[in-house]
């Protein structure tokens, strides 16, 4: 239990550090993968709704510290995303990688839709940015992030040498 907490704590910390320093380097035409979302996805799909909500909230809050204008925006969106992904956790249902990939995609849509809705309410932006943002920003970002997530799946599929007891 404690080893799991430490392991996931390290995963989230490394994700945050990579997201703030390394990810801008590998951006393609301004599109960056969201490693925090990918990490949240792998966590929530394993542990369920409540841990997903808690970790989503903390990760979002970590992101919000870098935001000069809206504190709580990412905390709320990541909470919702964590809860959604947690509904389809591995304890409840066995799903193949394709369904998981689709889930991650939908989680991105939900996360980003909530993000833009908050922006519309708080900053008074036009409602059109919800649709333009989802198509122009969310879609490429989700696809890039899914490509990163698939790398982890491939890593899991590679046969590992057996460990002798």
């Amino acid at each position, binding site marked *: 239990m404690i080893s799991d907490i430490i392991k996931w704590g390290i995963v989230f*910390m490394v994700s*945050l*550090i*990579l*997201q*703030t*320093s*390394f*990810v*801008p*380097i590998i*951006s393609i*035409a*301004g599109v*960056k993968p*969201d490693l*925090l979302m990918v990490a949240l996805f792998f966590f929530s799909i394993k542990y369920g*709704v*409540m841990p997903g*909500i*808690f970790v*989503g*909230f903390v990760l*979002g809050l*970590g*992101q*919000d*510290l*870098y*935001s*000069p*204008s*809206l*504190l*709580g*925006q*990412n*905390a*709320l969106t990541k*909470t919702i995303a964590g*809860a959604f992904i947690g509904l389809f956790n591995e304890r409840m249902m066995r799903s193949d990688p394709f369904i998981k990939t689709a889930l991650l995609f939908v989680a991105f849509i939900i996360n*980003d839709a909530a*993000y833009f809705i*908050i*922006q519309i309410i*708080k*900053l008074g*932006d*036009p409602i059109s*940015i919800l649709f*333009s*943002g989802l198509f*122009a*920003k*969310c879609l490429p*970002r989700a696809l890039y992030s899914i490509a990163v997530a698939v790398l982890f799946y491939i890593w899991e599929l590679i046969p590992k040498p057996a460990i002798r007891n």
Partner: protein
Amino acid sequence: MCATVIASLFMLSSNPGQQQNITRLLAFSVFYPFQFYFNQTTRIKNVFAENRALKDQIAGLSVRVAQLSECGLENNRLTGMLSISQQFPFTLVPARVVVRDPSFISRSAIINVGKEQGILPYMPVMTGRGAVGKIIQVMNRMSLVQLMLDPANRTSVMVQRSREIGILETDNADDFFIMFRAHADVNVGDTIITSGFGGIYPRGLLAGQVKKLSENRDPIFKKAIIAPEVNFDRLEEVFVIKLPPQWASFRQELDTLETTSAKGFAQP
């Protein structure tokens, strides 16, 4: 679930104040060393390729140095004549972008200069190409910069040719626009510079170019789509202009008046 949603909503509804600053200070102090050293190591991968390219460049450049030294002398003379230093009396502090906002709309960046280098809140930040944003929080050796990409950011600008004033803004960190009056003298290709009226940026910093003029539903205004001068995706080195906000003196005076009046009320 309810607790986290309520906490998020509470933070959204509260004003970003002292608590937010303290939290940021603590969090940044913890992550900053990791982020800084990771940033340094990612630079190493380019060093070998850069070394080869630089050797090639040196050969070509040594020839040009002789020509340019003559031009440099001439330039010094002309600069003195034009008193450029009087036109731009700003001290620039070079800084490196160490951390980028992890959100998918990059609203901010952290740079490696702070109080120790004399940086103050609301000092403007620029690159060689133009305005980038403003300092909003200063720590000892780092500062948080609000980029012009932030939809909450507004910048007072003007058309360099016709001196038409407008506010540069964005909804989604991609499309910058200015709402001009319908009869304003603005054309595609016009250069947009900071107006200096906002009290933060000095007048004359490049902000972008008019890319398109689009018809607006409102007949009173027309919308000019702006292509920003700075590539925010490849932001690495920036300069902080050591220029305190022009309203700082008024703010101080106001604070003094408030303090004085408060004392006056307190005394019987």
